[in-house]
């Protein structure tokens, strides 16, 4: 490079600059303003985000809002409420409660983790927590089914109530599976969708089974 031989840098030109790394995607002023805002605003914002996701589950459309801003508040609330409602369904009133709640909790989260790992191993582009978020939110129809089952069981526990419960739980199970498939299957290569949908089907089947076999004492 002959042209560069003439380039000379004067010694007294300082090398200066600014190292300004953006902290997050917003300017720092906004971070400070969220610290200064009243707690009610923060809570309302989070509640609105959670509520928006619930609406997305109710009407499953291909939207990326559920995936983009994942949070685990909704799954936690749903899981805890489902486990609480499934408590007290054993015939023994002496030593129920503890293990049952823990078993439901563990099964939901362990199942969700297994499905997420499976979809990642199959080459999915979704991240770990996004998948957990979607699976947790799609438990909502089954929680509604649990509520309905409890109400129906208040009226009586005969064959008619069993048929009603079967229909309700079956419908909600299909809804859950379709809702989660609508979100998760898109992140897979197109020829492997069936491989990802099947464990989700099994997972919601097990939860539906737990709901259907619930008999209060």
């Amino acid at each position, binding site marked *: 490079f002959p042209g560069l031989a003439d380039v000379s840098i004067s010694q007294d030109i300082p090398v200066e600059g*600014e190292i300004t790394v953006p902290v997050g995607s917003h300017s720092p002023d906004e971070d400070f303003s969220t610290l200064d805002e009243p707690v009610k605003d923060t809570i309302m914002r989070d509640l609105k985000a959670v509520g928006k996701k619930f609406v997305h589950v109710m009407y499953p459309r291909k939207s990326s809002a559920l995936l983009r801003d994942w949070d685990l508040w909704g799954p936690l609330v749903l899981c805890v409420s489902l486990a609480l409602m499934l408590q007290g369904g054993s015939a023994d009133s002496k030593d129920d409660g503890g293990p049952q709640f823990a078993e439901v909790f563990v099964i939901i989260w362990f199942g969700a983790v297994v499905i997420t790992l499976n979809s990642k191993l199959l080459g999915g582009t979704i991240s770990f927590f996004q998948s957990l978020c979607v699976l947790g939110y799609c438990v909502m129809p089954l929680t509604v089914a649990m509520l309905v089952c409890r109400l129906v069981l208040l009226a009586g526990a005969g064959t008619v109530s069993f048929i009603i419960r079967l229909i309700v739980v079956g419908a909600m199970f299909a809804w859950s599976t379709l809702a989660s498939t609508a979100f998760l299957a898109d992140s897979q290569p197109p020829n492997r969708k069936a491989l990802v949908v099947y464990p989700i089907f099994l997972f919601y089947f097990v939860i539906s089974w737990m709901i259907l076999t619930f008999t209060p004492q």
Partner: protein
Amino acid sequence: AASRTTCRWGRAGAGGGAWRGRAGADTVCAPAQGGGSAVIDMENMDDTSGSSFEDMGEMHQRMKEEEEEEAEGEAGAGEEEDGEFLGMKGLRGQLGRQVADQMWQVGKRQASRAFSLYANIDILRPYFDVEPVQVRARLLESMIPVKMINFPQKIAGELYGPLMLVFTLVAILLHGMKTSDTIIREGTLMGTAIGTCFGYWLGVSSFMYFLAYLCNAQITMVQMLSLLGYGLFGHCITLFVTYNIHFHSLFYIFWLVVGGLSTLRMVAVLVSRTVGHTQRLILCGTLAALHMLFLLYLHFAYHKVVEGILDTLEGPNMPPFQRVARDIPVVSNAVLNTTAKAIALTL
């Protein structure tokens, strides 16, 4: 000025350049706390024993503000030299060590976290690289015994199909336990089902792999897991049908036909990979026995016993296994006979 979180380095020295990527990414760059004096005390600058990263940032910000205020060349030139001198000197002290240590820890933590997460997943990734067509083909093949046993048969080392089959078996067991009207807490039911199925798959695979190692059979652990897992397809079909249609004779037919076919397939594949008559006998006998007995166990331990249920309705405290205790002596002879015949057949 107090709300700025950017770290402004007036003169980027050699050490400051290395910080470019990290500055602002965590909380090290604290905002400047108020204005500074016009004169910088050089003795304080030299005090590196207690200076922290934040103080350095603050001091530099103060310096930068003074430069902006003055807007003259001469004072700025003087400050510049001092600033550069300061930067180099400050780095070499304890501050430099602290920062380097901090960066090292953060980097190490991130790297080890990323490595453990991605390395663990990547180890298993090749075993999940399947297409639905392949899975379906392998499921159907698991029921077809191969004829050629003189040539080592190929076993696909795949874990997706077996894992899904184990979970399906768990689901079918749960469904079967419900149709048997056993009043048990769902928690222990679930734990029992999962423990049984996974225990069988992993435990028997390990045991068979150990035996294969003793008998010099050419099979790897993943292949063994895969073979046994696909053999559970027969179990799933049998249990699914017989939990809904409660006939003992139907169960025995299914046990022999479906269970026998999948056992034959597994046995043939193992035989093709072993040399020596004694070794073949040991391996295949053990596998056939365990496989068929597991199906029997699943059926009788979890199956609704029509004859015994009226007698055993002694209350909700009855654990499930006692329900079938009455039935077993009745059919035990038949069971033993058919088991012996099945083993003789497979050998």
